[in-house]
């Protein structure tokens, strides 16, 4: 157990089937681990099951076989309410399509998960949120409505929100997939910096080979299986 402790995330023998429209084996016996402070990317062709895997790892999808450990404790089979707490406290999300609440201000979007967690009072949460926004260089947008800012800015707000509860791991589903190369680089740099400075683990699904090559490790998938868990291609 003491060895496993240093792993933030561990997947053991994950199998997943789709039953609609026909029974289909999507994920086949996946095993891997993510260390503390490690920046991991998952690559693979469309339909290879990498997004499906991410939803399982994020605890949102519970229809799978196998075991999932987060910070050394088993999360598989926990009731929905506890899983919601795990997502709230331990996992930060960044999606391809930003997914901010459009009617709320940028600041409120960032504050919301912390308010839900309820460990700090509103004033402290507000300070943390502004600090996160300034870390990402967008504190001037705090009072803007989330629907009024640009795509790159939205993605940075989403990162600020993912960080608000100081999670152990941040998961991203093509976080740069919707951005131009400039913004893409900005987002990558931010993530990389967080990884190094805060010893945060990162697990990112991506199509972008350039992006993946800059990460610590690439998990390459094909047809629902891991075919390679190598170091980045460029450093091989």
């Amino acid at each position, binding site marked *: 157990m003491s060895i496993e402790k240093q792993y933030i995330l561990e997947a053991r023998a994950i199998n997943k089937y789709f039953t609609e429209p026909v029974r289909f084996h999507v994920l086949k016996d996946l095993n891997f681990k993510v260390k503390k402070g490690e920046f991991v990317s998952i690559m693979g062709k469309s339909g290879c099951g990498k997004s499906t895997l991410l939803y399982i790892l994020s605890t949102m999808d519970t229809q799978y076989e196998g075991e999932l450990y987060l910070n050394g404790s088993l999360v598989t089979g926990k009731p929905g309410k506890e899983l*919601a707490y795990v997502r709230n406290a331990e996992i930060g999300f960044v999606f391809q*399509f930003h997914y901010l609440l459009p009617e709320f201000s940028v600041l409120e979007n960032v504050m919301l998960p912390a*308010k839900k967690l309820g460990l700090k009072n509103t004033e402290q949460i507000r300070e943390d949120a502004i600090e996160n926004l300034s870390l990402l260089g967008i504190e001037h947008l705090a009072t803007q409505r989330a629907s009024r800012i640009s795509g790159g800015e939205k993605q940075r707000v989403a990162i600020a929100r993912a960080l608000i509860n100081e999670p152990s791991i941040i998961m991203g589903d093509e976080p740069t997939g919707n951005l131009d190369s400039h913004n893409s680089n900005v987002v990558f740099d931010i993530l990389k910096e967080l990884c190094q400075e805060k010893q945060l683990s990162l697990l990112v699904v991506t199509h972008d080979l350039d992006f993946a090559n800059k990460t610590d490790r690439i998990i390459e998938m094909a047809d629902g299986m891991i075919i390679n868990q190598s170091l980045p291609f460029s450093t091989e």
Partner: protein
Amino acid sequence: MNWSVILGISKTHLLSRKKQSAIAALGVTFGIGTFITLASFMTGLNGLLDGLILNRTPHIRLYNEIAPSEQQPVELLDEFSESFNLVRSVKPKRSLQRIHNALPIMNQLKNDPRVRGVIPQVQSSVHYLAGSIHLNGIVNGTNVLDEVRLFNLNDYIVEGSASSLARNINAIILGAGVADKLSLKIGDRIQIRSSNGAIFPLKIVGLYQSGLADIDNVQSYVNLSTAQRLQGEGKHYITDLNLKLYDIEEAPGMASALSESLDITALDIKTANAQFEAGTDIRNLITYAVSITLLIVAGFGIYNILNMMIYEKMNDIAILKATGFSGNDVKYIFISQAMLIGIIGGALGLLIGSGLAHLIDQVPFEVDALPTLKTFPVNHDPNFYLIGIIFALFATFFAGYLPASKARKIDPVDIIRGQ
């Protein structure tokens, strides 16, 4: 459960769609407002119609009915007890019209805790005289101040007053129909001939109009002692005892007990006005049926709008769930939105309902049959407001509950994958 966060999200959702929220709230407002207006107005009218008869009718009336003896003398004889006796052409027994021992009975009833008041009456048929014209009529000798207190006689005295009758034993309050026919007015004198031929001049101190022409054309009120003098009898002569109880529901039981113990006819209000009560029940039923329909329609309006809102908010629901809000949190967010709509719309509905009810209360409404009525009758019963707001909360809760439960079950993966 962190309610301030949930309510904060609900508030933002509602405020960011002001028009839609306002329409949903107005649906409730309309439902509750019309419910209160309708209920106040309808029950006001019902109360008026009830009052027309019920307020004027004694809960129990004790009198001697003229009827044939139930047992004929032949049946009391032992020789004929085994035989089949047939008596033809049975005539009613001559009996006292007055109530035997009326004053002791009255005192006993006055001490009964169920009884609010007892009024002794002397009914005598008379002729109103105007020159050579003799008009049939009934003079009701009564304790007029008690009549006012227990049976709202004042509401039906269109001119003059009951108290001026109480002060003068040679006075009369004349039925409005009689006064019209004989073209008499307050201050005039009228001659009355009693059934035994004596003629009394009485001063008219008031005009009485019940709204029922058959009564107004014959009936007049005098003091009890005046009526006793008309009959040529003393103060023990009392033909009717009218009882008003605290609880009208006790009338039938008490009437049969009295009839048994006093050997007297006791007519209770329920028996006397059975068909009237059925009418009241049906009108109440219609009022409530229409009101509840209105409220249910408002409930469906809220259901529709929330249902639509949830389809619009699929992304929000997914993101809330992904960032750690549980299914129940999401459910409460939408239920609380429905409840907020219900509270605001309902409160506004109470105000509008109250305003409309008071407006109707001011609308002039005069009919000859109801002399004291100047405006539409409206019943400002606080219970309607209570029912209204409780229903608003219930209806919005259930209207919100179904869509909110749907939102609780939404799988965020489906939404995120679907993008």
